[in-house]
């Protein structure tokens, strides 16, 4: 076997000093397989070496939190016997290289994280970000990613109930694909990855191991012969059919109590799964790689340990349960092999062809993994832009509105979600296109709401504010459908952490997320970090995505955004200050890209949200939509389009100019529809709680938005809103 030296270590993505530390820890030079294991465990993805220090500051506790970060997924209590398991994860690089397979395996991976814990997946979401629509790669990437997400999720039969799609030139060379899954589990039947007990059989189940995804970086030319190209499929191919079988087989096995611990083989495959289980249980583990089911002949221990073949699981079983377990996996036509056992050595010891090929104390790989306190730079709050009357002189409200509704980041994304099966499982009661997707908890009166949000533009302008903003937006989206926000998961997509600017963006976004989630009592229960999203030195805008989850105690009280009744009154809750900087209006219409993002006032945010929940509880609200990109008028337009109704807007009673009033993106606001008869009650509740509101107008049967000096046809607005993406994709 190749002798390991510094160069090979560096080819494996390790730093000089890291390699030195490995040799010191071991008191010898590792062999190639061992080096591969170190490089996998010590890389950013598994060790969180740049982020760990800061992630500790996240707010992770709450009354309903059953399991916070650190497991395969987070778990929250949703009353009775029920708990929801959920997490979001990135699959950015693979999706850029092979959009279909990259996105598909991203969905597969996150679903495994969820059903590993004993939960049946009940909903998928995705947050996808592409380069400028004009960029030559964008269209094919979008098409491939959407097909991949659908291809996997549809096949498994889990509804995709929501998501988010954005376009920004900073993703030209580096798209983002984040996939989120929610699963339902019985509180008493949650499975964890912590191994326990000595001499327990370690079981491999699922697909066979091939040479998929073995780290590109670790494929040093010294390691392989001239067939290297042949041996190097770095993108994995997903097999949703096998995953469906694996899901059913695992859930079947979980019905009794033979499993001690279970872990899916995700990044760094068998390496990280086996080491994590042992590390959490403070045990050792012994594996015999000759027993691992392989797809190809002649696979080396190095390859077997580092393969990222999909649809595989590692299980520690109770003694004596092997036969019964095997029967289940046979029934589902899946591979099953006893490949090792737990030990008290606190080491990972690996045998192959009767030879010991790896012998490493687990601590070296987990606890002793490097942790960096990287340099970071604070982003100053940009100066506020002074917009003058002149800026608006040549504009017309109706033209601006049409343009905004057709903006790629605001327009309807039906082309996307029509390709996702969003109704399978028969419990989807709010489909994509609303503020949050909602699925019933099967057979109960309860339902869960979920949404994914991010706002790279705000985060780029001022990461601290941006971080807070997304948590607030997520909270608002959940409330808007009538649910009580419970917890979030986060996928932190950033550039190169070795650059102080990018690291600063990370640190401050995390701080913002933490502050807001603490204040709103909206804890983080799971998540994932993706660094190095850059090509040729050009990094992405900082893009943390937040996946929020909420509970509806009775699904019949769900709220949707479409206007319901002629004659109702519409109001906006929350104060409109006219903050245009960083708004789509400023960027898209005034062509002004500078300035600070809208300020977050957590007190108002919480007060407005909880008061709205109170109103919803009292059944005083007919429809609701939070105000986000594009401001109040965009929000109203969407409610009109969906409800096929018009509105007559009152004359503005404010000192703010109409463009600022209609298009500013001040935070903490919702547009709500209230019946005439309930209006007084609503007014009282809002006043009691000191929530600012403006009465905007009344709902009409006619298909127009009437402004004091203009009239805009809803059909025309709908056309602008619905057509952009469809037309873009068929061109």
């Amino acid at each position, binding site marked *: 076997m190749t002798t390991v030296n510094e160069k090979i270590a560096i080819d494996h993505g390790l730093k000089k000093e890291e390699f030195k530390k490995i040799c010191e820890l071991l008191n010898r030079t590792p062999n190639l397989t061992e080096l591969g294991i170190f490089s996998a465990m010590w890389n950013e993805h598994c060790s969180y070496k740049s982020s760990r220090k800061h992630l500790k500051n996240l707010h992770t506790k709450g009354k309903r939190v059953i399991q916070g970060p650190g497991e395969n997924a987070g778990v929250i209590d949703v009353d009775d016997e029920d708990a929801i398991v959920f997490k979001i994860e990135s699959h950015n690089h693979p999706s850029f290289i092979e959009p279909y397979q990259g996105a598909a395996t991203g969905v597969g991976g996150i679903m495994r994280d969820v059903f590993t814990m004993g939960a049946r997946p009940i909903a998928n979401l995705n947050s996808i970000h592409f380069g400028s629509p004009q960029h030559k790669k964008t269209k094919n990437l979008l098409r491939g990613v959407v097909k991949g997400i659908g291809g996997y999720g549809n096949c498994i039969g889990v509804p995709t109930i929501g998501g988010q799609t954005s376009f920004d030139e900073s993703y030209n060379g580096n798209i983002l694909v984040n996939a989120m899954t929610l699963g339902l589990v019985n509180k008493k039947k949650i499975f964890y990855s912590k191994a326990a007990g000595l001499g327990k059989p370690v079981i491999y189940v699922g697909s066979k191991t*091939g040479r998929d995804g073995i780290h590109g970086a670790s494929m040093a030319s010294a390691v392989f012969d001239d067939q290297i190209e042949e041996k190097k499929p770095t993108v994995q191919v997903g097999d949703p059919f096998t995953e469906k079988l694996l899901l059913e087989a695992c859930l079947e096995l979980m019905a009794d109590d033979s499993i001690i611990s279970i872990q899916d083989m995700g990044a760094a495959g068998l390496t990280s799964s086996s080491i994590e289980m042992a590390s959490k249980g403070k045990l050792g583990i012994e594996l015999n790689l000759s027993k691992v089911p392989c*797809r190809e002949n002649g696979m080396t221990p190095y390859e077997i340990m580092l393969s990222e073949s999909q649809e595989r699981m590692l299980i520690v079983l109770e003694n004596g349960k092997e036969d019964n377990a095997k029967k289940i996996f046979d029934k589902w036509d899946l591979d099953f092999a006893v490949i090792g056992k737990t030990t008290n050595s606190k080491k990972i010891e690996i045998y192959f062809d009767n030879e010991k090929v790896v012998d490493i104390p687990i601590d070296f790989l987990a606890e002793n993994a490097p942790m960096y306190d990287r340099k970071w730079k604070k982003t100053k709050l940009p100066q506020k832009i002074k917009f003058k009357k002149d800026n608006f002189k040549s504009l017309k409200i109706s033209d601006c509105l049409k343009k905004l509704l057709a903006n790629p980041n605001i327009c309807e994304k039906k082309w996307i979600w029509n390709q996702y099966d969003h109704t399978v499982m028969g419990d989807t009661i709010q489909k994509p296109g609303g503020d949050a997707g909602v699925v019933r908890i099967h057979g109960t009166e309860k339902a869960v709401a979920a949404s994914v949000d991010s706002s790279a533009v705000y985060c780029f302008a001022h990461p601290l504010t941006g971080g807070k903003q997304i948590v607030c937006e997520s909270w608002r989206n959940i409330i808007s459908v009538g649910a009580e926000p419970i917890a979030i998961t986060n996928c932190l997509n950033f550039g190169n952490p070795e650059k102080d600017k990018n690291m600063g963006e990370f640190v401050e976004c995390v701080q913002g997320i933490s502050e807001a989630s603490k204040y709103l009592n909206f804890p983080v229960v799971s998540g994932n970090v993706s660094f190095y999203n850059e090509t040729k030195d050009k990094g992405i805008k900082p893009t943390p995505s937040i996946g929020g989850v909420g509970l509806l105690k009775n699904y019949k009280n769900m709220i949707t955004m479409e206007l319901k009744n002629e004659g109702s009154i519409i109001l906006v809750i929350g104060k409109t200050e006219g903050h245009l900087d960083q708004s789509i209006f400023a960027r898209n219409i005034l062509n002004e890209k500078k300035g600070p993002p809208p300020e977050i006032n957590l007190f108002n945010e919480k007060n407005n949200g909880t008061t709205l929940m109170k109103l919803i509880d009292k059944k005083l609200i007919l429809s609701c939509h939070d105000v986000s990109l594009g401001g109040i008028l965009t929000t109203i337009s969407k409610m009109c389009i969906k409800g096929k109704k018009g509105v007559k807007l009152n004359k503005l009673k404010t000192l703010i100019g109409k463009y600022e009033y209609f298009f500013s993106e001040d935070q903490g606001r919702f547009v709500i529809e209230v019946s005439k008869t309930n209006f007084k009650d609503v007014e009282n509740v809002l006043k009691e709680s000191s929530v600012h509101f403006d009465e905007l107008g009344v709902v009409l049967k006619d298909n127009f938005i009437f402004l004091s000096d203009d009239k805009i046809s809803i059909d025309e607005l709908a056309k602008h809103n619905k057509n952009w993406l469809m037309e873009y994709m068929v061109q």
Partner: protein
Amino acid sequence: MKIKLTVTLKNGVLDPQGKAIQQTLNGMGFSNVEEVRQGKYFEVEVNEKNEDKAKSKVEEMCKKLLANLVIEDFKIL
């Protein structure tokens, strides 16, 4: 003229379809089927009389669209 080509998965890349087909064939009694690999086959009609030119055009198409060289190989027949 019409150019024919195949696009196949690289060796070592998982071929779930091929695997499922093989198992089905075995189940149907074709017990001596040891492996099935599935690929794509294309016939491209190019408005170009010169065979070499047509083929080199198609090769370019393969590289840019028809095959993803990360996981697939193509072969012009």
